[in-house]
């Protein structure tokens, strides 16, 4: 009821102790297309749904390489995500330059979080409207963090953000206990299956998703369409079995009028992306 009176400025508290502008920023994350991250002891997989504005356009890039040992998947305002990725890359390069060693993931997410917090306490700024799934590997092992527009960050075994992420989260909740010991292949398969959950019945094709992997002895890189399709082929043969198990509990979130693009078949990274 009081929302409208106290939501103009990020620097105005509501009587119930909330900053509505920050909460609205988190809404923006929910509007973006889904992004998923999972980790095992030795690998981290980031995957996302490729969503394009229309059939004519290419899809936006949502997963970025930060360094050989860190990748980030975003959901929400892609422009904000790009800017933050550039910041992360810059921090990583500066750390390597000064210390001749890779930037520990935990340090990076703290800096990101502090950067986001600044925007929640300046009247002339607005919070970043993007959620970041930061996956990385350092001396203490494989990590997956989620950075909020609020400036909070959490570590996860597996997580999903963006529209219809609840379906993916439900799938992940069932399976996450086994991820720690998962092999690289099992982890990738789980990521793609989680993506499938967010598609809500639409046929899963390799052109609809982007998958990236990083791990011990494996620098961050994207999987090519062929490899993704191979994994899809292993389970799409028995779609009935899987669908019964997965579809039940998923409550579809209010997707803000975005039409799921029907497989544009866009294999390469289009020039208009960054």
């Amino acid at each position, binding site marked *: 009821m009081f929302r409208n009176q106290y939501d103009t400025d990020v620097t105005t508290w509501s009587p119930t102790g909330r900053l509505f502008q920050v909460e609205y920023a988190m809404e923006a994350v929910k509007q973006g297309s889904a992004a998923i991250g999972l980790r095992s002891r030795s690998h981290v997989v980031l995957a996302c749904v490729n969503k394009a504005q229309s059939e004519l356009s290419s899809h936006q890039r949502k997963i970025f390489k930060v360094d050989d040992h860190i990748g980030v998947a975003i959901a929400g305002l892609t422009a904000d995500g790009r800017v933050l990725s550039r910041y992360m890359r*810059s921090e990583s390069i500066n750390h390597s330059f000064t210390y001749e060693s890779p930037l520990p993931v935990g340090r990076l997410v703290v800096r990101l979080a502090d950067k986001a917090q600044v925007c929640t306490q300046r009247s002339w700024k607005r919070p970043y409207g993007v959620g970041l799934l930061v996956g990385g590997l350092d001396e203490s092992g494989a990590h997956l963090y989620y950075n909020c527009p609020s400036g909070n960050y959490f570590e996860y075994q597996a997580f999903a953000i963006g529209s219809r992420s609840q379906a993916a989260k439900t799938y992940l909740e069932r399976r996450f206990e086994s991820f720690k010991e998962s092999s690289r292949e099992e982890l990738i398969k789980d990521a793609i299956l989680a993506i499938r959950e967010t598609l809500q019945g639409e046929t899963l094709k390799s052109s609809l998703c982007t998958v990236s992997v990083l791990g011990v002895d494996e620098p961050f890189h994207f999987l090519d369409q062929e490899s993704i399709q191979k994994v899809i082929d292993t389970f799409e043969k028995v779609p009935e079995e899987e669908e019964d198990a997965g579809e039940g509990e998923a409550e579809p979130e209010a997707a803000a009028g975005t039409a799921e693009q029907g497989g544009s078949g866009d294999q390469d*990274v289009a020039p208009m992306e960054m």
Partner: protein
Amino acid sequence: MTKQHANWSPYDNNGGTCVAIAGSDYCVIAADTRMSTGYSILSRDYSKIHKLADKAVLSSSGFQADVKALQKVLKSRHLIYQHQHNKQMSCPAMAQLLSNTLYFKRFFPYYAFNVLGGLDAEGKGCVFTYDAVGSYEKVGYSAQGSGSTLIMPFLDNQLKSPSPLLLPAQDSITPLSEAEAVDLVKTVFASATERDIYTGDKLEIMILKADGIKTELIDLRKD
């Protein structure tokens, strides 16, 4: 009232010689592995050759601390380039970057004498030679460092095209085969080692071709 001069220098010369020769589909970059200071030897096994990108290899003699700092800057800049362009830097692009980086410190230069070797966009060998503040030129061959004065005239004799009076000298690409170029490099280093006290110990040769980089390590006189 004479001006007071500093009683220390921020620079030191660690000696050594670097050579590069461009071929039709290869590039040879070579340097000795001796690092000295004054009349002493600091290391017999120090590499002066560094790969900056898939198709660009830098060899620098001079003050190795400055060389190391220069390399770190170029490596970071290359990473940024890769993030922005999704591909590695070409040799001519790296050449320009190196020039700009050197000139950036025009008034407190990197004491580094550089030779950049690699393959251009068409797969032909290219060599770029520099002075300490970034003036550079694309050439067919070059030598820098303490033994350069002994080596350059001989390379001119062998690789510069004949009849310079009639035609403009065409030394852009050597007609030598890869084996002949490597042999020539071994010969010039053996000679330079004889007379230059700062050159010797071992010779490191890197051969850059479209399919990858090969490295050879050959002994030189150690006195």
